[in-house]
């Protein structure tokens, strides 16, 4: 009998070492094993939906031969009866680092930047590496393979997780008995991309998300241009990119917004990316669905925050508490929306955590069928490999799991994980479950013994009457060994083989004296699971609602336009009619419909504005809120980047600025380089998506910058041109000249290489795009105007422009406007001569002047900043008010739509408690296109709601901790307050 078993085992080994037919053999004679193996009487999940209750799985040579309820077994079949057990296709993880040597972080070199590429014969940017192949860095990792198999995985797709374009992946079966010859299923399995720079490369560009996006766009057009044979030099990156074109393209987004960003780039280039998600897709599920992409979802749901210290608990934002509460529902939400997704162990500390997290997703409503699909069929389908993996249909790799039952139940034991027909033991399938309570007879005494814990790793407690005795148990291969000390601390040792046929067992007993006797154990009752546990497992935990945006002070419903009638207000029109007393204003269909005396209300919501002031919404010509990045500092010209790509609609500063009466703002690129990026002109519609916040048919703007920042004067950097104001001029002259030549060539019909940066600069020369130029001292202001005049366009706006008062006459002549600070100065050398009278002087010389913020705090009281022009320079209240309404609207070319209270304009208005220029005034209502985005009364309710919800979630977390849940330390995810100089 025993010899037969051994023989079987040897056969198994042989069958898995599938030697290639054509390889010579010198360590013996060539022999083949073409035996079949059949697993009978199993519940077989051929696919998530094709389930055979009692069937047979027949495999041969590492492949599934046949599966069905009744399968005729060939004669040379080894039959394994798995009655009562289940067979599943093993899991697939297509976002793995398995076996592939990862990139190492390049040592820092302080602030000395490297601007040029470090490679020859490749793309100009080091972070683009489509020529990388994971297979060249692959070494099968036996140890990791085991941890993955133990978690149920049979196949993984691995790649080099580094850079913006990362090259191809390698699809590997976790077959530790085979060799790379059979376990590598595909060495060009997919191409991987991301927005993240290579950690191994030091080339500066791109320093920002928007830079990464621009780089990808340019790269794709360059690849086409290269493919058409236009390049005179060899570029192995572009060649590889073109070669990889037909592979599955997998994009590491790790964030709902990034997923949408990536998808947009894909759409523009005819590519549908598969996207590695961030686990927060549920927050913007409609748009996520709209991508049409398949997702790979990490399930590293946040651990419970340790909120036992109330001070520390204060630091955690509601947004993060909510994510803890809502994130486990993410897979369910995607399933409910029919979005195809697979699951990954990515970002988990260890694959061993996978099941716990997966169970959580199921507890939060993910169906078991979907869960199985996400681990088998879906990843196989994403890679286009369903004919080889992902199911147990005939012809597939024999990759399957044998379990004690439903694999998605907590107590279920995973016995074996077969990969390519090779068995891997995880838990002994034949091990008898001995858990229960027993009467133990040993040495003439009776003890009560209870065995609990996991079936394969039991725990023991032995009692003599009421005395608990110190005891130990080990149990393997059905051999049981127990030792215990009696009340006198004398030790007894027992060992015996557990029989399959009876619940009782007996065996050898060694008494303290050394005498050998026998013992017996009679089962008195079976094992029952903890009652508490059973209860906890089934109910869906309470979830708080998602808001727009899904952060504190987000709205449960997005604000909608209403018909509103303001009665009896003091109306500041910002038009020629100035201030109208006791006037009514009707807002309808998002527009200002009527202005007059005693207007009829009709169905409008009437707001008594007696004693209050109604103005147009404040417009901030220069903001850096609501952005994920400000500067692309990698080049001295970055016209190719767009702030519209990086709008952050969840920034709480949007709400705070609404509370200060701001309705529109120009989100500008920073001032790290002479030619910066393109602007996003926004309406501060709190709760809407970035796309809906951006003006429709938005005027085109770009940020330019002069002076200390672009010279990098205030930090240790001496390598980038320009280092002087002389150099700044040359940068502009050079770029505009090139853009002019580019445009001429393009319009001539000649073949040209599409260059996004040149396209944008040509727009400026052609008067289609406007410059907002960061500027301080008079010399550079004058220079910039002269450069523009040489190329026959005019500068639209000088922003900051603190020495504008010195050249106001020249500015008026050139026709440039000014967006300035009210009273800032002395923070750097170039603002030594800045004066608060600047706005008044420029205005008097005929320059259109706006007061702007460049500061998230100041922006929420721009009304007060405008009031300072009354103090400094004696502006009238009316003129002062225009500086934050119609004047910035003019500068931004949106004055036909906003900036004043005029019939037909957008209903962007603010109701103030007092004279709007008074330090005592508060914005009571801020309305954009007829929808109320801020209301002081609603705000009060929101405060209560925020604090109640925090309290509720804190109590849920405390309960989770008390119940033994894992916790993480509190943290405060803080968004940086950004300015021009934020890198």
């Amino acid at each position, binding site marked *: 009998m025993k010899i037969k078993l051994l023989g079987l085992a040897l056969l198994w080994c042989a069958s898995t070492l599938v030697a290639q037919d054509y390889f010579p053999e010198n360590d013996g004679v060539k022999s083949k094993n073409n035996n079949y193996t059949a697993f009978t009487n199993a519940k077989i999940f051929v696919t998530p939906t094709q389930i055979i209750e009692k069937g047979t799985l027949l495999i041969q040579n590492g492949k599934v031969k046949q599966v069905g309820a009744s399968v005729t077994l060939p004669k040379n079949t080894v039959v394994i009866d798995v009655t009562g057990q289940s067979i599943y296709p093993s899991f697939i993880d297509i976002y793995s680092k398995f076996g592939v040597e990862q990139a190492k972080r390049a040592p820092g070199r302080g602030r000395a930047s490297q601007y040029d590429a470090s490679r020859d014969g490749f793309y100009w940017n080091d972070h683009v590496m489509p020529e990388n192949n994971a297979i060249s860095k692959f070494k099968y990792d036996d140890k990791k393979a085991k941890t993955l198999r133990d978690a149920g995985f049979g196949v993984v797709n691995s790649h080099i997780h580094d850079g913006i374009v990362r090259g191809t992946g390698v699809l590997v079966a976790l077959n530790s008995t085979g060799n790379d010859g059979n376990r590598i299923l595909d060495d060009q399995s997919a191409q991987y991309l991301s927005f993240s720079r290579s950690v191994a490369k030091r080339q500066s560009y791109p320093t920002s998300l928007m830079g990464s996006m621009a780089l990808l766009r340019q790269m794709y057009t360059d690849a086409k241009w290269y493919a058409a044979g236009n390049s005179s030099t060899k570029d192995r990156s572009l060649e590889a990119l073109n070669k990889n074109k037909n592979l599955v393209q997998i994009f590491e987004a790790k964030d709902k917004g990034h997923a949408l960003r990536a998808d947009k780039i894909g759409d523009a280039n005819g590519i549908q990316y598969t996207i590695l998600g961030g686990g927060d897709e549920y927050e913007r599920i409609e748009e996520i669905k709209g991508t049409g992409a398949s997702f790979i979802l990490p399930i590293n749901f946040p651990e419970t925050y340790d909120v036992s210290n109330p001070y520390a608990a204060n630091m955690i934002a509601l947004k993060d508490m909510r994510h803890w509460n809502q994130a486990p529902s993410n897979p369910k939400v995607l399933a409910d929306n029919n979005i195809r997704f697979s699951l990954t162990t990515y970002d988990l500390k260890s694959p061993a955590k996978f099941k716990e997290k997966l169970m959580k997703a199921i507890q939060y409503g993910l169906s078991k069928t979907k869960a199985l699909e996400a681990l088998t069929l879906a990843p196989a389908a994403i890679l286009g490999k369903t004919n080889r993996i992902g199911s147990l249909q005939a012809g597939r790799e024999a990759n399957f799991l044998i379990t004690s039952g439903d694999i998605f139940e907590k107590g279920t034991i995973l016995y074996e994980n077969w990969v390519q027909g090779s068995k891997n033991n995880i838990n002994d399938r034949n091990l008898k479950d001995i858990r229960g309570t027993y009467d133990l007879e040993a040495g003439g005494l009776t003890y009560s013994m209870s065995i609990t814990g996991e079936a394969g790793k039991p725990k023991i407690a032995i009692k003599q009457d009421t005395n608990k005795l110190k005891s130990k148990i080990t149990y393997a291969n059905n051999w049981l060994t127990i030792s215990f000390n009696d009340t006198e601390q004398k030790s007894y040792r027992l060992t015996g083989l557990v029989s399959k046929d009876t619940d009782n067992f007996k065996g050898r007993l060694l008494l303290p004296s050394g005498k050998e006797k026998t013992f017996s154990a009679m089962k008195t009752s079976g094992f029952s699971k903890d009652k508490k546990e059973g209860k906890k497992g089934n109910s869906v935990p309470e979830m708080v609602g998602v808001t727009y945006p899904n952060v*504190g002070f987000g709205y449960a419903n997005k604000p909608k336009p209403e018909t509103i009638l303001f009665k009896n207000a003091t109306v500041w029109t910002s038009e020629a009619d100035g201030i109208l007393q006791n006037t009514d204003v009707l807002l309808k269909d998002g527009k200002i419909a009527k202005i007059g005396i005693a207007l009829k209300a009709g169905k409008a919501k009437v707001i008594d504005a007696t004693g209050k002031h109604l103005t147009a919404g404040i417009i901030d010509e220069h903001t850096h809120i609501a952005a994920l990045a400000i500067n692309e500092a990698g080049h001295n010209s970055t016209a190719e980047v767009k702030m519209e790509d990086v709008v952050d609609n969840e920034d709480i500063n949007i709400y705070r600025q609404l*509370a200060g009466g701001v309705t529109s703002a120009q989100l500008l690129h920073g001032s790290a380089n002479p030619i910066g990026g393109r602007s996003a002109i926004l309406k501060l519609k709190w709760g809407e998506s970035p796309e809906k916040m951006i003006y429709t048919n938005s005027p085109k703007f770009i940020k330019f910058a002069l002076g200390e920042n672009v010279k990098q004067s205030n930090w240790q950097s001496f390598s980038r041109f320009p280092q002087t104001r002389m150099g700044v001029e040359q940068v502009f002259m050079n770029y505009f000249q090139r853009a002019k030549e580019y445009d001429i060539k393009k319009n001539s019909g000649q073949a040209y290489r599409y260059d996004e940066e040149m396209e944008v600069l040509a727009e400026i020369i052609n008067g289609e795009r406007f410059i907002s130029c960061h500027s301080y001292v008079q010399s550079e202001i004058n220079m910039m105007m002269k450069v523009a005049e040489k190329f026959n366009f005019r500068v639209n706006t000088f922003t900051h422009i603190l020495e504008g008062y010195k050249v106001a006459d020249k500015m008026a002549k050139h026709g440039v406007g000014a967006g300035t600070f009210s*009273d*800032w*100065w*002395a923070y750097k*050398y170039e603002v030594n001569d800045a004066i608060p009278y600047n706005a008044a002087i420029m205005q008097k010389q005929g320059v259109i002047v706006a007061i702007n913020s460049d500061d998230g705090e100041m922006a929420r009281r721009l009304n*007060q900043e405008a*009031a300072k022009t009354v103090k400094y320079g004696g502006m009238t209240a009316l003129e002062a008010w225009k500086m934050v309404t119609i004047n910035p609207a003019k500068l931004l070319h949106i004055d036909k739509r906003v900036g004043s209270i005029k019939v037909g304009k957008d209903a962007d208005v603010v109701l103030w408690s007092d004279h709007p220029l008074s330090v005592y005034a508060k914005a009571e209502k801020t309305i954009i296109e007829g929808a109320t985005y801020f209301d002081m009364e609603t705000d009060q309710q929101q405060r209560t709601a925020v604090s109640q919800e925090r309290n509720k979630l804190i109590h849920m977390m405390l309960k989770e901790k008390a119940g033994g849940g894992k916790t993480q330390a509190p943290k405060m995810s803080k968004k940086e307050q950004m300015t021009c100089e934020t890198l």
Partner: protein
Amino acid sequence: MKKQRNILIVLLLTLVSTSWGQQTPASVQKEAITITGVTAHIGDGTVVENCTIVFENGKITALGQGETTKGTVIAANGKHVYPGFIAPVKELGLIEVNAVRASNDSDEIGEMIPHVRSLVAYNAESKVVESMRPNGVLLGQITPKGGRISGTSSIVQFDAWNWEDAAVKVDDGIHLHWPNSFRRGRWWLGEPRGLKPNKDYQKQVDKVSEFLTSAAAYGNGKGTSLNPAFKAMQGVFQGTQKLYIYADGEKEIIDAISGAKNSGVSDIVLVGGYHAYKITDFLKENNVPVLVQYTHNLPSLADDDYDLPYKLPKLLMDAGVLVALQNNDASNFQTRNLPFYAGQVVGQGMDKEKALQMITGNTAKILGIDATYGTLAVGKSATLFISEGDALDMRTNQLTHAFIDGRNVSLETHQTELWKRYLGKYEGK
């Protein structure tokens, strides 16, 4: 008739001083000056309408309705008089231009350096300092920055030839920046940018306590060799200097005040106090006043009320805590906006005169200069100004005169000079 002539003289004087520019400090008050017909905002919460104020030799000698005029008379009917505003915990005169390292003398190296004194580095001729005066900010506490104990501050007035002349109270206090129980993620090493628990907090607190204990013990000993840091601390144990402790969190505030008290520090002032409104009873029990952060700030936590920084001073004052405003973490030039920080609290429902106290009377009390400065009262220094209107509102904060210790100081600055020069350019003057 005589009165009219005097007015004429004053007017002439004003004109002349305008053309002098400001760089020249005003000379000592020689003749009595009377201001008539003003609304006098006393700085203690009260107002005297139609008030006459007389000052001689730098001191107020009469204040009230119908007081007899004396000397030069300034008829300021309908205008407002305020005590000079006081800016605590500032680096004015220590930094001229933030980005120019050579002009920065605010932060000496070392963690515990109470012996480092701000006064000797104070630039009385700073262009930024002079720009305070046209907005009514006439006094300041010049304070070193950085490290755990940054050094010793001094209080100065803003119209002087040099630091010695400027000094109002020399070496008035020591400035201790309490450790924070949360610390910022080191993003350059790939950590998230937000805050996380500071594991070293207790260690850092112990280090402060040890220093305070050692410094106190040093003071009791005799004949030990000189330890400049310990020696510099003696005033806070003897009650001659105040200890300014910078802390914002509840835990930090409680730890800081309890710790300092246990070490024998008698006069403690809390600076910052973002969460102080939650523990006002504790502050009152310990008799600790607060130099609260200025109102033109963003909330620190995402879920805070948008207007928490606006109403924070009110929350403290309503609870009975002695409060004044400071803007220590703002750029120096911003300090001229001190009155508007106070105005912002009025928008939150605070009485205007109470708001004014937070930059005048209360500040003087907290800094320990209230015997001379901070309010308008007979016997106190004539450090005051006349404004066309409400000085807490941007539109009406329009100064016609400012006096420091009775000296008629210039309201001209580098900035007004440039303004006038370029008005001249365009208007052909």
